């Protein structure tokens, strides 16, 4: 099973990484975006999937990564060092913030994590002297033609995605992953069985933040310009968990499958029904919540979409809870 998952992932990585060989610039651009979102989704899965804490902090970590990367690069650090700073800085930030907010459970945690995005955007917008405020920041651009730069960033984003995936496989098979799943199912029982739940949740939260920071730093270097609205994007912070739910929450491959299918679907709608593009996010959310509690991988696991759909529909008609995984 694990070998199958890794093979599927490897084939997908090859497909993304080889886009410059067979696709135009537009396709390469799409591949970079997919790799970026895959990393965000894999990251979210540590806290939202394994530990079952529904986080909306993705954009906070991504945005903070953008700014740490941009500022350290402007201060003269080489690009790769700037990205490492973004990773470490965001990880430490998440650890400190986690100490406070991981005492909250369920809805309270979700709202607090969403609040973090808004607060950081406000703070960054109003610290003009350091961050350029609402006017944004220029980041030193890469030398070379657009094709060359696109290839570099494709390699970088896919590389980060592979690392994040490898870490999630390690976590999945370790005591850490086991403990997080216990917390997801019954936190009090997890505590009684000997799991230091606070420490485990903080580790999961830090893991969910670090790679968002790396990706943010890389994104800032890629686009060459960031501003608070772009960096702390409220849509991104909702899209990421939706992608995980679409693919299958708490599984290693789910976030990858979810982000790929979501973005490809979005592309399709962009090109065919431009006006309705925003509506698809809403539609996907509704469909998953009502009819696909296990995500796409839940279907692949052999329960069958029809059976799952019919069961959910039946419950819905009876007025009971619909999405019971």
């Amino acid at each position, binding site marked *: 099973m694990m070998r199958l998952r890794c093979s599927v992932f490897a084939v997908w990585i090859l497909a993304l990484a080889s886009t410059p060989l067979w696709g135009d610039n537009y396709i390469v651009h799409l591949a970079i975006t997919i790799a970026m979102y895959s990393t965000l989704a894999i990251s979210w899965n540590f806290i939202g999937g394994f530990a079952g804490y529904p986080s909306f902090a993705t954009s906070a970590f991504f945005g903070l990564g953008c700014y740490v990367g941009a500022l350290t690069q402007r201060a003269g650090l080489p690009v790769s060092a700037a990205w490492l700073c973004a990773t470490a800085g965001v990880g430490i930030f998440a650890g400190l913030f986690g100490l406070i907010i991981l005492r909250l459970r369920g809805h309270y945690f979700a709202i607090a994590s969403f609040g973090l995005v808004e607060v950081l955007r406000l703070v960054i917008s109003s610290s003009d002297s350091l961050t350029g405020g609402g006017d944004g920041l220029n980041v030193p651009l890469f030398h070379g033609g657009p094709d060359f730069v696109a290839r570099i960033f494709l390699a970088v984003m896919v590389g980060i995605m592979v690392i994040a995936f490898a870490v999630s496989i390690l976590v999945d*098979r*370790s*005591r850490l992953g*086991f*403990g997080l*799943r*216990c917390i997801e*199912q*019954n936190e*009090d*029982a*997890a*505590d*009684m*069985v*000997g*799991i*230091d*739940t606070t420490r485990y949740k903080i580790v999961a939260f830090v893991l969910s933040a670090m790679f968002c920071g790396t990706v943010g730093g890389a994104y800032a270097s890629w686009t060459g310009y960031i501003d608070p609205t772009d960096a702390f994007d409220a849509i991104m912070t909702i899209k990421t968990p939706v992608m995980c739910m679409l693919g299958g929450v708490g599984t290693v491959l789910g976030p990858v499958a979810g982000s790929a299918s979501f973005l490809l679907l979005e592309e399709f709608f962009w090109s065919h029904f431009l006006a309705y593009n925003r509506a698809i996010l809403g539609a996907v959310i509704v469909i998953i919540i009502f009819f696909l509690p296990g995500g796409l991988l839940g279907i692949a696991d052999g329960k069958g979409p029809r059976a799952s759909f019919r069961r959910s529909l039946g419950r819905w008609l009876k007025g009971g809870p619909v999405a019971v*995984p």
Partner: protein
Amino acid sequence: MTAIIELNGVSKSFGGIRALRDVSFTIDQGEIVGLIGPNGAGKTTLVNVMTGVTGATAGQVIFCGANVTAQRPYQAARRGIARTFQVVQPFPRMTVLENVMAGALFGGADREVNVRRAADIAREQLEFTELAALADKPAGSLTIAGRKRLELAKSLAMQPKLLMLDEVNAGLNSTEIDRALALVRKISERGVTILLIEHLMKVILSLAQRVLVLHQGELVAQGDPVAMVNDRRVIEAYLGEKFARRYQEGATGA
């Protein structure tokens, strides 16, 4: 005999409710001690204080010579104090095997168990508790009796020094109770010290070597099980004073 756990003047109040009042006792290594008392006497609260689920308002809990009054539940589990819940607490969407693995992976003193070793330990405990046939079923699908057994298996996988069973027999039929009785006896034979919270006198009389009686948060009596069952204060606690007098008069008159 050396004491494994010792309570010194433990009290616990919830707002105005004094759930435990100045409770002191010791349990020796290897003993099976019964804890009885009517509903609301504070039995579950006592177990909660001993495992760090709720903090004591006053007093001390000493486990293996160390003051553990302020411990958190996961620390209690790692020291070797395990307990089952009156209201069972499984990981519902994990399999029975995985539930027991959780106990083996994280509980128990001074051990670093990896996932594979935990699976071996869990399988042993499932054999021991006669749950092996259900190993791959989701825990949420078990019957009440099955879930109580699972709680036991999970606690045993923690390889505890002290095991506290909070009404493991409540809701079971008499065949299931007999199986549970045999199981508790087997656990004790492995050298585990047991604190048994129980309503059924039959269970207490056949298992416990000593009985503690809790009434309105106070430890009103302790001693030999047969003596306790016939003790006036105990009968009072259970039946009320008037009935107790009548019961006693009937007993001596006959």
